């Protein structure tokens, strides 16, 4: 035990420190599991970079990776809550399919004809209708699970078939193209990115937020005279956070539009072309779906850790009987979790439909498995009671990195599936070992 570190934890009178800082990591209050995942991600990235001859860690690939991850990452945040309460949702891929189809049909057949092309109301109503449809589908499944007592596995397995069938039925198996250009921005692409200046503004806001949250937490603890983290640890945490945000912004801003698109963009926005005829550098910046995913991640983390609902979700996962005896309406909470999952699947549908600019009835096939895998790789325990939103999103990024890395290496699809399957099992095995050790 390090005496130095112990001495640094200043104990205000009346409340001695509850944990002595034994090392650098514990003084920083770092989540060791999360760090482990970041290291795994770094290994995967660097490994693919070397194997692919330097094409993985390029702005272009990383930007695409971030866009490809967005839909699964959004859904994984909801899957965490589902799995934490010892449930499972096998229907998310099909719910994504049917809500995507509903949104495309509503937009193409009703909204655009009513309001005209690219009316701002169109994308808002499309998204709103999709989210409500998703929440209702999830709510119905949740009702059957919570109030009628049918196991979640069975209900959502049924849902997997029902909603896939419904997706086919809504459009009689046709592929429905989207008509609204504003809605397509949700999916990313050259237009669906915010550009350099906005990216820097978002970066600045994010950095300010990190600093504020840390400062606020410290102020609260000071107010009640609780033991504090050493100052140097606070500064390191904030510093690392800000560095990560700035680095990400630099990456997305160094991915520039291809020359043809850049010229069109410049003409459309009245930007003068360079006189010497050299290529115009117009950065993409953050993609809209990525910003949506990050926003959802922050929102869901807030819900999970700062609200009563989130507290109940974890309490139910830890001990359903105790939650019931504490007077929590566990059935209502369970139903709400599934409704929320449905709404998030609809948001995932908006992202993936907008990215493909059309809805197909096979859309989202197998997404339930990727979503569950992302949550589980991200440290959500299938036994219930444990899991974090950030971990699940990182899990989604790990999965997507593996897949897109293997595509870069030109591996065959069957081999890709074999690798992803094996990685999932190994990740859960490592997690089991880790949990046994800390107990």
């Amino acid at each position, binding site marked *: 035990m390090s005496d130095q570190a112990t001495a640094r934890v200043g104990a205000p009178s009346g*409340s*001695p420190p*509850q*944990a002595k800082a034994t090392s650098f990591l514990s003084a920083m209050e770092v989540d060791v599991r999360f760090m482990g995942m970041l290291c795994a991600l770094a290994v995967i990235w660097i490994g693919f970079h070397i194997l692919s001859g330097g094409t993985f860690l390029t702005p272009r690939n990383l930007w695409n990776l971030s866009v490809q991850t967005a839909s699964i990452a959004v859904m994984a945040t909801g899957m965490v809550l589902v799995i934490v309460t010892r449930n499972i949702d096998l229907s998310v891929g099909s719910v994504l399919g049917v809500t995507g189809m509903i949104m495309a049909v509503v937009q193409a057949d009703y909204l655009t004809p009513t309001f005209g092309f690219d009316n701002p109301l169109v994308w808002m109503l499309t998204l709103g209708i999709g989210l409500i449809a998703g929440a209702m589908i999830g709510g119905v499944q949740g009702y059957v699970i919570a109030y009628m007592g049918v196991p979640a596995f069975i209900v959502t397995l049924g849902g997997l078939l029902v909603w896939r069938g419904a997706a086919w039925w809504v459009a009689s198996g046709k592929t429905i193209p989207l008509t609204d250009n504003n809605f397509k921005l949700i999916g990313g692409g050259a237009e669906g990115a915010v550009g350099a200046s906005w990216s820097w503004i978002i970066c600045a806001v994010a950095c300010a937020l990190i600093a504020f949250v840390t400062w606020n937490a410290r102020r*609260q*603890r000071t*107010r*009640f005279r*609780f033991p504090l983290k050493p100052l140097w640890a606070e500064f390191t945490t904030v510093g690392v956070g800000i560095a990560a945000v700035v680095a990400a912004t630099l990456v997305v801003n160094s991915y520039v539009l291809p020359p043809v698109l850049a010229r069109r963009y410049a003409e459309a926005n009245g930007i003068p072309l360079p006189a010497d005829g050299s290529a115009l550098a117009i950065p993409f910046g953050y993609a809209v779906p990525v910003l949506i995913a990050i926003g959802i991640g922050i929102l869901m983390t*807030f819900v999970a*850790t*700062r*609200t*009563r609902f989130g*507290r109940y979700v*974890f*309490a*139910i*996962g*830890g*001990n359903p*009987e*105790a*939650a*019931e*005896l*504490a*007077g*929590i309406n566990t059935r209502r909470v369970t139903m709400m979790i599934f409704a929320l999952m449905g709404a998030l699947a609809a948001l995932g549908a908006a992202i993936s439909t907008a990215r493909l600019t059309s809805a197909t009835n096979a859309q989202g096939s197998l997404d339930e498995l990727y979503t569950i895998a992302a949550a589980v790789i991200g440290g959500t325990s299938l036994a219930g*009671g*444990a899991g974090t939103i950030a971990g699940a999103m990182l899990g989604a990024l790990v999965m997507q990195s593996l897949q897109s890395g293997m595509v870069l290496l030109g591996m065959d699809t069957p081999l890709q599936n074999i690798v992803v399957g094996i990685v999932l099992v190994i990740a859960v095995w490592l997690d089991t070992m880790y949990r046994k050790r800390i107990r």
Partner: protein
Amino acid sequence: MAQNTGTPLVEMRDISISFGGIKAVDHVTVDLFPGEVVGLLGHNGAGKSTLIKILSGAYKADTGSIFVRGQKADIASPRDAKAYGIETIYQTLALADNVDAAANLFLGRELLTPWGTLDDVAMEAATRQVMGRLNPNFRKFKEPVKALSGGQRQSVAIARAIHFNAKILIMDEPTAALGPQETAQVGELIKQLKDDGIGIFLISHDLHDVFDLADRVSVMKNGKLVGSARTTDVSQDEVLGMIILGKCPPGATRGPGAISDAELAAVAHHA
């Protein structure tokens, strides 16, 4: 010692409940006065825990009624029971293992900030205060309760019951997981709570404990009440006879579950 006159703090009258045809509690009547400790005794499966779970709102009685301070109380859920000031320390402790002490203490009754978010800091402060009283050496405020020892977990469960100004406290085997020193601490706490005018139902296997702490005992056997008695009016052996044989001694009020004299004679004959 509390005088049993006037309105009881709580009265459970003629309570019955059955599970799949088995009468777990069969027409049992018990009462509790302010500042009084009533020990509920009986074998495993005698129906003690079921009876108190009806009072704490976990089960709904098939027949019978509950009166709190003379008023008929409608208790359909744990939340209702808590609204009447009835707090319970369950034998299983009923803690959510994966969250910390403060989250367990305030489970279902979280403190909120003006913005409607969880006020974790205020909850931790309150937890530090109440735990400081119960278990001054407790330090693990940030750890999930599964990382705590049996005694520490027990003190979290007790803290949860006493923090919200309970009027009626149900303790189901409160010392089961405790060492001798902690058991003595709980005994002190019970005396302290008694002085505050709180009524306590104490369920315990340990006859000595009950005789030390309780003013009265009610004994159950096979779901029926054998009888009730002041601890000063009966001996420990007589209470043991009530528990094992269902034999109601002269110092006790007879209940429907008591063995009749004829049956008793038959038992004595066999022996």
